């Protein structure tokens, strides 16, 4: 399936992508550009791009399980007050309340389980929505007053 890119009149970029690592790179790049265009500093740009990448990895790897029949949907928007990134998959769904704390002593030596923690650490708001099927994450980074980019 070919990827689809659309941009609305408000500048909201929407992507429908295949469940591949190339798509993860594309989401990361789009988030980096959104943050750069908004005038965020290097550390903030890194955090936003990384959070988006982690969400995309979750969608591709854990949600869609690299299934070529499933897509991920991502959108990127600067509302003036915030950067809003949404990433959705078509998988089994995710209960964020059941995710273990990767920093707990009993989990520290686990090889996985840090993605959502990093997303929550780097973004100001993180919202989960069950799509049945699938999960949509909304990542929000508040912008300082007067900064729109």
């Amino acid at each position: 399936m070919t990827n689809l890119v659309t941009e609305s009149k408000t500048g909201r970029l929407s992507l429908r992508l295949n469940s591949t690592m190339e798509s993860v790179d594309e989401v990361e790049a789009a988030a980096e550009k959104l943050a750069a265009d908004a005038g965020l500093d290097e550390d903030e740009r890194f955090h936003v791009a990384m959070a988006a990448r982690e969400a995309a990895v979750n969608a591709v790897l854990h949600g869609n399980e690299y299934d070529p029949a499933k897509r991920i949907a991502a959108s990127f928007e600067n509302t003036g007050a915030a950067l809003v990134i949404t990433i959705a998959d078509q998988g089994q769904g995710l209960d964020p309340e059941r995710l273990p704390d990767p920093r707990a002593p009993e989990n520290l030596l686990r090889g996985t389980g840090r993605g959502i923690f990093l997303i929550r650490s780097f973004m100001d708001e993180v919202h989960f929505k069950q799509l049945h099927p699938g999960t949509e994450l909304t990542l929000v980074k508040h912008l300082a007053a007067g900064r729109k980019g």
Partner: protein
Amino acid sequence: MALKITSREVAGVSVLDLSGRITLGEGSVQLREAIRGLIGKGTKIILLNMGDVNYIDSSGLGELVSAFTTAKNQSAEVKLLNLTKKVHDLLQLTKLYTVFDIYDDEASAIASFKK
């Protein structure tokens, strides 16, 4: 930039010089194979020089942890050298800074294996 790994030996310590990104996919697999290759050959002391690692994601962090545990299970040691600020901050944030022995200079890192 994909992960590039070069290896050398200093005073009996296997040093892996890493450059690029350690992320899900090629980078993390390369690191895993390099570590396991060394341990499989009987190497007991491994130093990961991360001075040129400009990006690591959660999968990359997981790969570092796996390297640590794999080594420990084989009575080997893996230590870290020259963390960039980004990687340092990620290890602090995830509390992985408490897991690894981390050094800022190679001589001290090499010497630490002999204690």
